[in-house]
């Protein structure tokens, strides 16, 4: 039983050949769509600041992804704990010493990029837990001993991000972590219990929330409560999507977008803008593209011979799904506005960076799918 992976060396040509081109093309396609959408947001500003930056970032980080995909998956495995703690350190730094924007302290100014460690934490948590469960047998997952570490690993960044405050990202980190823990075989009842616990503690959580977060949740329940304040975003977003119709208002013709009725149109509400201009058809096609990317990642995961790769791919696939659905359900008025970017589409370097790192690891899992990590 000879596995070339055990030799550790694959030729460059082989590496290229064994990449998942469906995934690559899908990501490139998504990048193109995102630049087009970003270009549309720039129209009313009269400069091309966002679209240029976005395209540049996509190019740079996509190259980074290719580079990362050539690195053997076992190095990620051995590097994972270190990676997690680096990100955790950055997160602590950002939480306590970072730049404050709109009342939330979540950025570190690195001069060339405003890094948001919480975005990277979304990936770091998956890497760490994949590494952790790589060796844990399904029977052991439900023991207290094997539950304490993942719990601490998960709860620390969640609390940090929550205190920034950044409800959206902390929820997404939690969901990503829970996804991996669940995949590892945790008894479903624990998740049910903790969910019930969450529901019971909901009033306490509410009382601890910042006023703007409270108002967002209340506004979600009834957007007309405050149509010019917190409800404004939901109402305008629904108007934009709804007025798009079947085929949309056309590229650059989304009035809600270029007349600035849409809030945060570069970031969280980019899907709204896209949906206004390209309509139901465009939105569904975009959703299919995302679904296809998720599908490819799952396929790569299922073909991976090592649990680390499997856990990571599956965990990341579920996480992307959460990113997408939380964002879309949010802009479509079915979830409170918590602030979560749409992967690759939304403007923002950290989010793009973390996506590309993760995709790089996924691609590495593909290239080194036969690598066995003991």
């Amino acid at each position, binding site marked *: 039983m000879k596995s070339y992976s055990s030799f550790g060396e694959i030729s460059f040509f082989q590496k290229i050949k064994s990449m998942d081109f469906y995934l690559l093309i899908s990501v490139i396609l998504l990048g193109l769509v995102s630049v087009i959408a970003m270009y549309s947001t720039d129209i*009313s500003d009269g400069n091309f600041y966002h679209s240029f930056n976005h395209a540049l970032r996509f190019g740079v980080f996509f190259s980074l992804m290719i580079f990362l995909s050539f690195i053997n998956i076992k190095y990620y495995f051995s590097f994972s704990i270190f990676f997690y703690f680096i990100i955790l350190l950055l997160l602590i730094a950002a939480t306590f010493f970072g730049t404050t924007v709109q009342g939330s302290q979540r950025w570190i100014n690195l001069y060339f990029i405003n890094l948001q460690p919480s975005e990277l934490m979304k990936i770091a948590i998956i890497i760490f837990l994949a590494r952790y469960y790589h060796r844990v*047998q*399904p*029977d052991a997952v439900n023991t207290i001993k094997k539950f304490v570490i993942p719990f601490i690993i998960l709860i620390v960044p969640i609390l940090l991000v929550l205190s920034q405050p950044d409800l959206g990202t902390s929820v997404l980190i939690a969901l990503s972590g829970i*996804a991996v823990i*669940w*995949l*590892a*075989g945790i008894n479903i009842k624990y998740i049910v219990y903790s969910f019930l616990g969450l529901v019971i503690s909901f009033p306490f959580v509410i009382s601890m929330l910042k006023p703007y977060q409270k108002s967002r949740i209340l506004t979600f329940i009834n957007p007309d409560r405050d149509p010019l304040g917190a409800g404004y975003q939901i109402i*305008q977003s*629904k*108007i*934009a*999507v*709804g*007025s*798009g*119709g*079947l085929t949309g208002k056309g590229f650059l013709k989304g*009035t*809600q977008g*270029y*007349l*600035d*009725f849409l809030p945060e149109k570069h970031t969280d509400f980019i899907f709204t803008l896209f*949906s206004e201009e390209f*309509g*139901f058809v465009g*939105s*569904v096609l975009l*959703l299919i593209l995302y*679904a296809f990317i*998720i599908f490819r990642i*799952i396929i790569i*995961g*299922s073909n991976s011979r090592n*649990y680390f790769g*499997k*856990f990571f791919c*599956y965990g990341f*696939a*579920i996480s992307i*799904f959460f990113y997408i*659905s939380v964002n*879309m*359900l949010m802009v*479509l008025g*079915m979830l409170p506005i918590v602030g979560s970017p749409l992967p690759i589409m939304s403007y923002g370097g950290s989010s793009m960076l973390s996506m590309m790192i993760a995709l790089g690891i996924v691609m590495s899992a593909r290239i080194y799918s036969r690598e066995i990590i003991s």
Partner: protein
Amino acid sequence: MLGDGIGSNVRKSNLINRRMFIASAAKAVVFFGIVGRLFYLQVEQNKKYLTLSDRNRIRENKLPPIRGEFKDFFGKTIAGNLDVYELHVIPEQVEDFRVLITRVKQILSLSDKDVDKINKTKQKQKPWETIIISDNLSWNEFSKINYYLYDLPGLKPVISVGRNYPFNESYSHVLGYVAYASRDDLSRSEIINERHVPGLRVGKNGLEKTFEKELIGTNTIQRFEVNAYGKRINQLEIQNGDQGNSLRITIDTEIQNYANELLSGEAGSISVMDIYTGEIIAMHSSPSFNPNDFLYGIGLKEWKDLNSNPFKPLINKTISGLYSPGSTIKPIVALSALENDVIKPSMQVYCSDSIDFYEQKFHCWKKKGHGYMTLKNAIKQSCDIYFYEVARLLGVDRLNETARRFGLGDIVLKNFFENEKEGVFPSTKWKKEAIGQNWYLGETLITGIGQGYIQSTPIQLTLMTAQLANGGNKIYPTLIPNKKNIELIKKEMEGNQDYDMPSNYPSLVRNKENIKFVLDAMFKSTNEVYGTSYSSRIEDPKYQFAGKTGTAQVKRITEAEREQDRKLEQIPYKERDHAWYIAFGPYKNPRYAMTVLVEHGGSGSSAAAPIAKKLFKKIIDRHEEREKISNNKIILS
């Protein structure tokens, strides 16, 4: 370990894959949910959201409608429009109101008082209501503001429509005036509410108010695309409004102006009517005011002055002034007595200077009395004693019946003025209802000479005179040229040189001879020696007119005062008699009736009749011009 490891590895693998499969199924469900939501919003509710999106981005800018003009009978503009440059601001749309006002103050060099006023208005209004910073910018100031507009967000230079009355005070009481629409105006009239824009001026009075609906016009509507901050991005379309309808009225500006001139310095009224068509040829109330003063909102002091002026310039005395008609009522008293066969024209009454009825003394105006009088002479010389007797024989109720038929005690210009008064023509029933007392015979006597409870407006007397002069036929007074009326009369006239009433016009009298008798008496009153207005006669038959003077007491004259026989100048103004004159002419072929009233002018023959004489010349001179238009020789646009 390895075997065990393989087994557990397979289990682990299966577990992970199974769970991933479950997760994928859940994902698919959520994604379909998202698709469903998209379908609901974008396909099912598309219309609703499209409307909302348009409402977001499209702002309408309503411009003030352009008001219809008023023209006189000859098509001359008597109320027109002019562009007014205004500066508006909506406080809500301004970031820092104080800074803005300071800048505007500099640019327009406003006074501190102006700024105070603006700040006060701001406090009074809601933040989204427009404040008019200035309603009277010069073109220079207006362009200057436009030049600086880029850094004065929230400021709105507006070209509004103002009203211009070229004949100043001549038409004030007929047309009224326009001023900014008040809250009352908005709640009163739906059309004003609908067409309202800040700075809109609406009719406050007179025909401007009555014909608001016709005059107001429709707004020009500009549609703009705006961004979320309300900034205009581009103009989408412009929907031009229509100017309101222009209205031609029956008044002749030449005569109207002349009436103004004749009454200048006096308080009083002149009204002239076509006795066949009922068209008002002139209608003036003195003193008047300049309606152009209301264009930019009248000052508080000026407004107070107008209100407290003892000559009451704001009241249209012609339709709202209530007076005792005095002797001008005598033709109707005579007619009523004749119609009711109460007396014969040959009845004689001896007039000393007074007469006792039921232990009360009643005086004639003439100190030494008229001697023996017959009916015709009694009208001609206006003998009070004779008419006491006539009234006594007639009774107030029969007199009331005739007088009301001829237009006394009722609104004359129905639907034209909301402030017209109906006055009073008393009857026994009226007194019972209004005062709750029985009628005394003495009251009948003084009613017979137009004193006592009787209260008339000048226009009622004009209508009465016109209906006497046209042979006792009912006419319908109007301020709008009455084509139908004229056509009807013209048809009747075919082949006939003279005007006469169409035969199907309702007659107000039983016996036409009675009318002729009264008219003849009025002719003698003006054109024969001893007639009360003999000195104001015109002998040229072209202008010759007939009339009746009236001198109405405003207070009871005491015996002491009667003894004194004071001259006019010795009597305080407010106690002087009102001077009346009613007339029609030309006598041979009458066409016009008029009433002249000079408040506290003394006697009708000395104060009112001379004015009528001058005016009559003018009216007859204008007659031909008027006929050209009535006969469609000149077609008015």
